[in-house]
């Protein structure tokens, strides 16, 4: 019982630290790709310290509650994800709960931003929700394939099964949904080529346009959490998780660096191009994976 409480406290802290580290790492790697020196890797921490010390402007009760809902939703997802051997709540619910709770991030931001009546915000919110609709379809197909291959909705069971045999990304029918997950990962992270939610040059950072001070700090922390979650889910489902948290974190960082390289070289898609892409290639590949899993039943 005491161990479980400690795990419930520790695993969001690990996710927070790693998420912030990933943000700093991405800025540094992007800078090196641009042939710049780049900010120190602690720059997101400096930004958050500054933002908490600024005055901040609220636009109403829902503006406050929405951002907290978004952050809390992300923190709850972390409790359901095994980080190495830390899996405080993974016994109950499993992948279905994660699938539902992952929507809380964009929904909370949408609720909160909608309270500030700014035209850029409403464009950003509509893009957030449409993009979420875009990647949820392939994501559900991918999760269905994985769940029906391992005949379990428990993510702990899936990780254990992979550790007994080998990674699902390297085993035959599951490599297909694995590729589909890699294709939608930039959309889940909200990075280029799917950076159209924020799009600073176009709609002045979208839903974040009215966020300043504390609100922006909370939004940054939420972004850190959601980056960690989407990559940790991939590592758990396809890269075999790990029994050791350190090794797990290394896998997360490797996948994130690959994503940053994609982010650094691609331009931004328009929203209808993004949906056309997401519902065509990743969805088709994921569907093919689902059929293959049914054909090659264990």
């Amino acid at each position, binding site marked *: 019982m005491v161990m479980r409480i400690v795990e419930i406290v520790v695993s969001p802290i690990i996710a927070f630290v790693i998420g912030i580290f990933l943000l700093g790492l991405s*800025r540094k790697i992007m*800078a090196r790709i*641009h*042939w*710049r*020196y*780049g*900010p*120190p890797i602690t*720059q997101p921490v*400096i*930004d958050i*310290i*500054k933002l908490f*010390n*600024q*005055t*901040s*402007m609220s636009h109403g009760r829902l503006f406050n509650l929405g951002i907290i809902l978004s952050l809390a939703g992300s923190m709850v997802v972390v409790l359901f994800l095994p980080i190495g051997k830390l899996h405080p709540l993974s016994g109950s619910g499993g992948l279905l709960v994660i699938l539902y709770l992952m929507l809380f991030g964009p929904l909370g931001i949408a609720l909160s931003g909608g309270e500030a009546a700014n035209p850029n915000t409403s464009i950003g919110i509509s893009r957030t929700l449409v993009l979420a609709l875009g990647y949820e379809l392939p994501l559900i197909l991918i999760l269905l394939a994985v769940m029906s291959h391992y005949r379990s909705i428990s993510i702990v069971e899936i990780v254990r099964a992979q550790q007994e045999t080998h990674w699902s990304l390297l085993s035959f029918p599951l490599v297909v949904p694995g590729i589909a997950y890699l294709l939608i990962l930039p959309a889940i992270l909200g990075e280029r080529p799917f950076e159209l939610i924020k799009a*600073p*040059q176009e709609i*002045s*950072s979208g839903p*974040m*346009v*009215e*966020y*300043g*001070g504390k609100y*922006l700090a909370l939004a940054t922390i939420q972004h850190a959490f959601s980056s960690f979650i989407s990559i940790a889910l991939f590592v758990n489902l396809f890269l075999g998780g790990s029994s050791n948290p350190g090794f797990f974190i290394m896998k997360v960082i490797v996948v994130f660096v690959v994503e940053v390289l994609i982010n650094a070289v691609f331009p931004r898609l328009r929203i209808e191009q993004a949906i056309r892409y997401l519902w065509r290639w990743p969805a088709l590949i994921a569907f093919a994976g689902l059929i293959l899993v049914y054909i090659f039943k264990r």
Partner: protein
Amino acid sequence: MDRNKLVKWLKEPAKMGHKYSLHAVYFCTGCGIIEVPPSITARWDAERFGVIPVATPRQANLFLITGYVSVKTLKAIIRTYEQMPEPKFTVGFGSCPINGGMYWDSYNTIKHLDKYIPVDGWIAGCMPRPEAIFVAVTHLWTLIDKEMANGYKKYRAKYRYYRANQEKVLGTLEWPPLFSIEGKDEELVKETA
């Protein structure tokens, strides 16, 4: 640069945070903005000092007035400045915001920017080189360290003076006063002098 001194961070986290995370609002008032793209991109890379441009005033705490300020732009500048969260720092870039520069006899530009919003520092020149922005940033660090970059406090304290000057140029302003403007007219004359 004392960014890596942990003791200072523990002692005054707020001040150090404001020093090393200057988010400049990307607002182009005149020709001076041409010097900003080289200074934020690969050639001079302002991000290594924590200076990055952001798209909205709510997320910004550094305001670079780059170049001449026409009367129409002044309205946008004031609105942008009032939307920024405190503490906020303003830097006038180029000679035009200082004293009018080559537009000193123009009917449509303002000559002294610091009559309308408080300015924490100036970069003189026409044009200043991008390096001058970094010199200005290091000077701004010193000012923040000594708590002399208090333009936003001055704006609160002397809002009546600034508002009167703004109204003199722009006519009636379309937005209500940000702070209290209660007081007698004689005080205003004193403040102006």
